[in-house]
């Protein structure tokens, strides 16, 4: 991916093309989708919520710290923390955690299947290995990522609110007032679109890396690291592109 970007991009597009072509046979792979949704979504929920709660809390504390003037109403903390969570932190915190967690796992799983000929075995039976292995993982990412994003946003806002209240920075009522005052209905829509794109980016890149593994156990290690790194890089890139085009 770093040495030969054009060729990698070509192979990546080809893989997506084949995955798209396998969609009609989806009935065969339905069981896998459910399993992957559980693994990607439910299993990641605790760590995502933990990270979101802390990022919401930290944002509150920092905003309060920066508001030195007594002329500015404290409710402004709510009007900063809530949109930060919804627009950026909810999706990005979830994204980084899943790039490491889900991305690395997908690449290691598929990479091991590749080097131990399990993918060959699927193909030799007459199954479409891309449809069987990749489509459910990418779909699970697209479906579960927004769910995790919503959970992360709520928990993050909640964390910020509680720390604000009990830390003596801003009472809950004022926090919510500030949030309501500056609320844009498009913000959560943007966040959802972003999380959906992140879900697709992370799972598809990790599948690509894992599926094309070669070179034994060492190759699996390489794919796993590359999947996590590439997922993070393209996540940041997608974040910027979406902000520039949609906001």
């Amino acid at each position, binding site marked *: 991916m770093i040495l030969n970007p054009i060729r990698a991009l070509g192979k990546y597009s080809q893989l997506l093309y084949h995955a798209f072509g396998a969609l009609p046979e989806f009935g065969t792979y339905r069981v896998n989708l459910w399993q992957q949704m559980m693994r990607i979504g439910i299993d990641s929920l605790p760590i995502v919520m933990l990270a979101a709660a802390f990022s919401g809390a930290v944002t509150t504390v920092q905003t309060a710290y920066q508001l030195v003037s007594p002329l500015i109403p404290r409710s402004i903390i709510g009007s900063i923390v809530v949109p930060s969570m919804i627009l950026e932190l909810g999706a990005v915190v979830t994204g980084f955690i899943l790039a490491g967690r889900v991305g690395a796992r997908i690449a290691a799983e598929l990479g091991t299947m590749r080097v131990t000929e*399990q993918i060959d*075995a699927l193909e030799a039976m007459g199954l479409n290995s891309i449809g069987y292995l990749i489509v459910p993982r990418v779909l699970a990412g697209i479906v579960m990522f927004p769910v995790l994003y919503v959970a992360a946003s709520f928990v993050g806002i909640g964390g910020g609110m509680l720390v604000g209240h009990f830390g003596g920075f801003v009472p809950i009522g004022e926090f919510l007032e500030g949030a309501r005052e500056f609320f844009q209905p498009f913000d959560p829509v943007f966040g959802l679109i972003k999380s959906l794109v992140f879900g697709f980016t992370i799972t598809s890149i990790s599948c690509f890396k894992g599926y094309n593994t070669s070179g034994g156990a060492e190759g699996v290690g390489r794919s796993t690291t590359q999947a996590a790194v590439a997922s993070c890089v393209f996540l940041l890139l997608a974040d910027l592109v979406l902000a520039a085009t949609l906001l």
Partner: protein
Amino acid sequence: MISVRNINKSFDGRQVLFDVNLDIQEGHTQAIIGRSGSGKSVLMKHIIGLMQPDSGHITVDGIDINIIPYAELRKVRRNFGVLFQGGALFDSMDAFENVAFPLRTFTSKSESEVRAEVMECLGMVELPDVGKKMPSELSGGMQKRVALARAVALKPRYILYDEPTSGLDPETSNTIDELIKSLADQLNVTSIVVTHDMHSVLNIADRAAFIHEGRMHWTGTIEDLHASDDKVLRRFVKANEYQIGV
């Protein structure tokens, strides 16, 4: 009937197969022999289209598998059972689920029918009690036998075996040889057995093909094999006889 015509294959500029030809008749058991690294597994992967030749063609029942669309290739592959050299068991499933997988995926058999057939297949490889074990809990030879049970579960017309008896004790090897023979005789399966075990070649094969350094060096019947005075082939056979103490 499977025909391999003028196959050439290179990996990263290093040629592995040179102009390989081979015909496998319906109902026959074809052994492919040769030293380690000579290209046997690569040839086997070409036969089911897991690898594409740089030039040349492979036809199965008259269908050129290198030019047909992927959907058609998958239909052709359904006629095959394949035992990979490393077993290639799905490590996320236990032994029972591995053998049940092709039955569940490609047939609409009821759960009790699937159960009965899986137990029959595991019985054939003399592993009736390992169903609940994960592949990582099985020895190499046991993994290989579970994989063999999975390869034959759908009673395919063609079975490719990549070293079915390597890593097995002589007694179990004989059982596997008998199994391969009985599948060939009773179900009229066309078998391709990649091996360097001359003992099983003599035991089960109708014909042998000897690959040497990526070239099809010699092909013929088992009787021809005994009579051949080809130096390289004799040396390979001799080395094996020495090993098995014939």
